[in-house]
């Protein structure tokens, strides 16, 4: 099982000091947090993508490429990559490039984005959100798997004999998760492709999460990718810890009370009961998260939101220390206990390469404009792919 952190990348005033970090500070803090995550032994770090204040991560592959250069082991991911407003061609190129630079330590989580005004800035309409997610991902899926794509759809300029470069590392595309909070269509999409499904449950009661995950598992089996309990599931989480429970509550409450999303509403006590938010000792966090699989089955990835609501960097780094030292090692053991052998781990580049029968160079060479020959020329593979519709 993988454990990691994900960030929204919000620039939020610290309510205890009134101080708001600059964008520059926040961006550097995100890098420091990612490096700390690797240092304490976490498996995954994921960044959000946003194109409006108060968020900074508008350019995730720039951020992740920089982190890739400063880390060795941790998997770089997104939470989420906007499959609706980004051009799927650019996603194919950017993340294949990142995959090469990071030697395969890359996966992605697709999401739609729920801010209406953002869509028109990219020439889109939020009312087409599901249709965009379906069509754009169908194209992206082909661009990573077919060397030459001819395609026509509803939203994007048609493609004639297009090759997305670089080709995926070792001929294996990055693993994809699909994130959705409320839309059954996205659970269905993840199931159809046999991709991962991530339920970002941090603001939701567990009954709702269970329902979404059950739908995905059932449909994963329906589409023939394996048994329902072999589907690839990820969950969000949100914690604040101090060695003594009452210290955690006292320190976090001023951040909770005015936090974006849920602030000014339910009390900290109510919200911790209703959602996965856990504020207390590391032991309490372990107990809470060890129980998640009772609701959704054995799952593959647990990401925690640690740097939000204006928490200062120093505090966030202390939290990640606690997570890496006192929570994750225990959770790894707890989650492994009683886990059936046929339940897979989350796919990694190495496991996907192994499943593909080993690495192969998937470089596509251009046609020589003098001889008209391509080093790849193979009459049996001179594919011109027909339109899907």
């Amino acid at each position, binding site marked *: 099982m993988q454990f990691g952190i994900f960030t929204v990348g919000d620039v939020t005033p610290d309510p205890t000091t009134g101080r708001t970090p600059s964008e520059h500070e926040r961006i550097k803090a995100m890098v420091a947090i990612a490096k700390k995550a690797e240092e304490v032994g976490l498996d995954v770090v994921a960044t959000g993508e946003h194109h409006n204040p108060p968020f900074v991560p508008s350019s995730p592959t720039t951020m992740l490429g920089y982190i890739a250069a400063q880390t060795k082991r941790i998997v770089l991911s997104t939470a989420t990559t906007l499959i609706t407003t980004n051009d799927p061609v650019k996603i194919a190129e950017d993340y294949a490039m990142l995959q090469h630079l990071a030697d395969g330590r890359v996966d992605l989580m697709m999401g739609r984005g729920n801010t209406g005004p953002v869509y028109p800035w990219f020439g889109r309409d939020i009312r087409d959100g599901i249709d965009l997610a*379906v069509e754009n991902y169908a194209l992206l899926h082909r661009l990573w798997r077919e060397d030459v794509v001819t395609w026509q759809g509803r939203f994007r300029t048609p493609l004639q004999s297009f090759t997305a470069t670089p080709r995926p590392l070792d001929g294996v595309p990055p693993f994809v998760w699909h994130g959705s909070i409320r839309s*059954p*269509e996205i659970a269905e999409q993840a199931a159809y492709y046999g991709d991962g499904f991530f339920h970002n449950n941090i*603001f939701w009661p567990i009954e*709702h999460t269970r329902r979404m995950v059950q739908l995905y598992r059932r*449909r994963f089996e329906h589409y023939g990718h394996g048994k329902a309990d072999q589907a690839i599931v990820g969950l969000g989480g949100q914690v604040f810890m101090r060695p003594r429970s009452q210290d955690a509550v006292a320190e976090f409450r001023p951040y909770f009370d005015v936090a974006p*999303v*849920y602030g000014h*509403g339910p009390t900290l006590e109510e919200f911790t009961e209703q959602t996965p938010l856990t504020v207390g000792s590391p032991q309490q966090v372990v107990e809470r998260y060890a129980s998640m699989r009772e609701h959704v089955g054995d799952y593959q990835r647990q990401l925690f939101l640690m740097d939000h609501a204006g928490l200062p960097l120093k505090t966030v780094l202390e939290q990640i220390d606690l997570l890496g030292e006192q929570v994750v090692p225990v959770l790894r053991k707890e989650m492994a206990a009683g886990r059936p052998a046929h339940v897979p781990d989350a796919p990694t580049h190495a496991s996907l390469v192994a499943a593909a029968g080993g690495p192969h160079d998937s470089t596509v060479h251009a046609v020589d404009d003098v001889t008209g020959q391509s080093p790849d020329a193979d009459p049996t593979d001179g594919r011109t792919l027909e339109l899907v*519709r």
Partner: protein
Amino acid sequence: MSGRTLAVVSAGLGQPSSTRLLADRLAAATAASLREQTGEAVTVTVVELRDIARELTDNLLTGFPPAGLRAAVEGVLAADGLVAVTPIFNASYSGLFKTFFDVLDEGSLQATPVLLGATGGTARHSLALEFAVRPMFAYLRSDVVPTAVFAASEDWGSTSAEGGLARRVDRAGSELATAVASRDPASSRPRSVVADGFDDPVPFEQLLTGR
């Protein structure tokens, strides 16, 4: 389960509240008429929005209902008919009253028989039922009965139990009872008339081809 259920939503703020008083009168009149028409037992469930006012605000902010509100919503959605009563504030329903209906899922009250009531200081506010409250339930596609009952201070001051308010209450109650009696009991119907994407997802091939 045999018998019929009536849900009452009252947005009164005072305790005791004239809005609740009107709601109880309307519920009693409906229940009496319904028993007479169907011969079945009638159960009345009352939701006092004042008791879940904070939970309603939390739902607006977080997007999901806390336990108390969820139970109240489930009670209302499972009922055969609804009596909905609000004080008139600024020529319309109160904010609290609207919030309850704002947090329901789309289509929740579609085709549900509904009786509307309202209270206010003077009868000059009575048409708010027709130009504000009724259109909201038209939007919700509920089956609102023709008579909506407004009770002003002067109605409560009337010494005659047989006065105008009592007549209006009885007429409205019998209209709602007739609408409820003409339908199969809610307990015998599928729980939701709205297609549920969780139980019955649109197959992906269909999504892929644009339906």
